[in-house]
C-alpha cells in the first residue's frame, strides 16, 4: 500500500537509485511488507535464499516485528527476525512512504559503514534459523497429506539499490 506512492511521482524513490525488480535474482533488498502468515513465510524463505549475496532484509510495519494486530493469530508469526536475519525494520501500522525512504537511506549508510551484514549471520547460524523455520512450518503440512492447492497473495516486494 505504501510502496506505489513511494515509487511514483509523489515521492519518487528512483532519485536515490532505488527501483523495484521483478525477481529475487536481481534484487539486493527484500522488503517484507506487513504480517507474515505461515504460508507466506515459506515463500519468503525461498525468495530470500534465492537472492545472491550481498543481500539485505527490510522488515516493514509493526506486524513483522511483533505480530501487530495479529499477535495472537494461530497462523501468523510474530517476529520475522527469528526466521530470517533482518537488517532494518520500519515500524508503524502502516508506515508512511517517507519512513520507507528514510529506512532505505539508513540502510545505504549502514551498508557503507559495514554495519549491515545480516546475511552473514544467516549463514553462520543457519541451524538456528532452520530450526525456527521448521518448527512453525510443520503446521502447514496438511492434515490429510494433500498438497495445498489454493493460491496466495505475494506479500514480498524486492528493491534494488
Amino acid at each position: 500500500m505504501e510502496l506505489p506512492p513511494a515509487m511514483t511521482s509523489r515521492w519518487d524513490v528512483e532519485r536515490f537509485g532505488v527501483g523495484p525488480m521483478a525477481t529475487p535474482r536481481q534484487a539486493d533488498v527484500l522488503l517484507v511488507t506487513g504480517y507474515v502468515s505461515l504460508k507466506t513465510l515459506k515463500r519468503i524463505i525461498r525468495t530470500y535464499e534465492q537472492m545472491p549475496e550481498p543481500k539485505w532484509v527490510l522488515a516493514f510495519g509493526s506486524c513483522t516485528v511483533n505480530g501487530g494486530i495479529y499477535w495472537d493469530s494461530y497462523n501468523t508469526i510474530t517476529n520475522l527476525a527469528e526466521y530470517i536475519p533482518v537488517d532494518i525494520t520500519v515500524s508503524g501500522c502502516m508506515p508512511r512512504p517517507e519512513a520507507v525512504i528514510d529506512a532505505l537511506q539508513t540502510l545505504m549508510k549502514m551498508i557503507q559503514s559495514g554495519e549491515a551484514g545480516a546475511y552473514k549471520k544467516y549463514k553462520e547460524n543457519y541451524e538456528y534459523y532452520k530450526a525456527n523455520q521448521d518448527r512453525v512450518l510443520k503446521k502447514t503440512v496438511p492434515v490429510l497429506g494433500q498438497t495445498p492447492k489454493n493460491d496466495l497473495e505475494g506479500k514480498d516486494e524486492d528493491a534494488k539499490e
Partner: protein
Amino acid sequence: MIELLLVPLITTLVLAFFIRYKRITWTLFLAANGFVLYKLYSIYGIWNLSYKVDTAYKILGAELTLGVSNNPIGWYFAFFSALITLLISLFSIGFNKNSRSNVSVIWMLIIFSNLGIFFAQDWVTFFMMWELMGWTSFFAITNGKDKALDGAKYYLALSLFGAALMLIAISVLAQYTGTFQIFASAYGLLQIINSSTKLGIGILLLFLTTFLIKSAIFPFYMWPQKVYSEGPEDYITFMSSVMIKYGIYPMAIFIVPVVGSADLPMILNTGNVLQYTIGYLGAISAILGTILAIFQTDMKKLFAYSSVANMGYILLGFSSMTIVGFEGSLFHVVNHMILKAAIFLTLAAVVFRTGESEMHKLGGLVYRMPLTFMTFLLGIIAAAGIPPLNGFGSKWMIIQALMSKRMVVFAIAMIFASTGAFMYLFRALASIFLGQLPDRYKDVKEVPPTMAIPMFIMMVIMLLTGVVPGVVMKPLTSALKAVGYNVEVASWTTLEGSLKNSVIDLKIVFYMFVAGVIISALMYFFGNKSEKVPQNDNYTAGEYPEEWGVDADRFNYSYAFYQPFKEMFEPLLESVSIDGFFASIGRNFEFLSSTIQGLFKRGEGAVLLFSIGVLLLILGGLII
C-alpha cells in the same frame, strides 16, 4: 575414373555378404568412403578423365553410349559430399552398435549412384543413377521399420513421378537435338527455346519439376518431414545433407545456363519469366519452410523444413542469374551440406542416447552432453547464417546478387527466412539442450568417441569454412573457370559481392568477433565470482514447484513455443495446404482401386464387357 564407381559397387556386394556382422560392414563402409574421397582428391584438376561404355542397344537409330566424365562442377559436388559421407560413416560405426537393421549395403549403393549422378556425361546414365537412387532410398528409409513406410512411400511415389517426367523430357529432348549428352543437349534446348518457345519451355519445366521434387522445393516440400522423422538417423543425416542436393546439381549445370541465356520475355528489365518462376518457387519454399519449421514439435521435422528453406535460398541465388548469385548458391550447397550434417549428427546422438525426438520431451541435455551441445550450437549459428561460421558467406553472396539485380521481393523473402530461421533454430536449441533436465535422462552420458570425433571435426570444418571460405570457394571458382565461366579464382578469406565496394574479408570479421569476445570476457572476469546452483533452484515467485507436482518436463517452456505466432499463421497455412492435395490423390487412387477390384471380383459382366470391347474395335475399325 571407373574404379571410382566400381569400388562402391563391389563394396556393396561384399557388404551384402557380411550383412550380419555389423562391425565388419561399417568398417568396410568407412574404408570404401575413405577410398572414394582419396580418389576424388587425386582426380582434382584432371578434367579430361572419362569412361565410356558402348552398348549394342539401339535407340533413336543409334547405338547408345553410356559414360561418366570428370566434370568440374560434378567434382565439386562429389568431393564435398564424399567428405561429409566419410564423417557420417565414421559416426555410423558407433551409432549402429545397437540397431537391429543394417542399412550399410543399400547406403553404399546410394553412394554409387551419388557418384554416378555427379559424373554422368549423358542423360541416360544420369537417369539410370537417378532411378537407382530413388528406389534404394526407399529401402534405406524404411530399413525394415513399418512406421517409416508411409513416409517412404510418399517419397518413392514422388521420386518415381519425377523420374517419369525426366524420362519424357530426356526422350523429347533427344528427339529434337539428336543427342543424349548433357552439355550438348543444353545448347540444343537453347535453340529449341529460341525457335519454338512453348516446346522448349515445356521440356525445361519437365526437367525442373523433377529436380524440384528431389530438392524438396515448393510444391513438393512435404517429403523431407515425412521421411526424416522416421528413417535411420545416420542415413537421414546423409540424406538431408547430401541427397537433397541431387536436384541442385543438374539445375546448376543444365537449367541455369539455359535459362540464363534464353531469350525470353523480361519482367521489369531484371530477369526473364523463367528466372522469376524459379525465384518465386525458391522464395515460397524459403518462407513456407521457415514458417512450418517454426511450428514443428519434432526436432527432425523441424530441420527437415529448415532444409526446405535452405533449398529455397539456393534457388533464389540461381534466380538472380548473376555469377555472384550462382557462386553463392553453389557455395551454399556445400555450406548447407556441412552444417546440416553437423546438426543431424547431433540429433542422431540425442536420439541414440535418449531415444526421443519430440523436443518438448527433451531438455537440459547440455548438462550431460556438452560436446554434442557445442556442435549443435555451432551448427545452428551456421544455419542462421551468422558470421564467423560458414552459413554466412553464401547467404551474403546470394543477397548481394539479388540486391544488385533489384529483385526486392526475393531479397525480402530471404531476410524473412533467415530471421525466421533464428526462431526455429533457437527453439530447437532451447528445447533440446537447454532448460531443465528431466529425471529420466539423469543417467544419459556423452556419446562414445567414435561418434564424438566426427562431431568435433564437423565443428572445425564449420569454423574453417566460415573464416577461410577459400577452402570451398577456391575449388568452386576453379571448377567454374574450367567449365568456361568468366570468374576469377577466389582468394582464401575474402568474398566478393556484386555491389559497389562490397568485398568482405571474413578473416577480419572473425578477428573482430574474437576482439569483441575478448573485451566481453575481460568484463566477465572483472566481475565478482559466481556460484553454481542446481537446475531446480529457479525463480518461481517463491513457490516450490515440486509441491505443485511440477517436474522438469512441465517446468520447461517448450511445447507451444511460438503459440501467438502460430495463431497468426495457422489460418493462412490451412488455406494453402498442399499436403491435402497430395493426400486426396492418394485417396482417389485407393478408391479407384477398390472399384476395380469389385469389378474383377464379381465379374458377371464379363461377356457384356467383351461385347463392349468388340464394339469399340468395330467403332475404331469400321466407322471412324
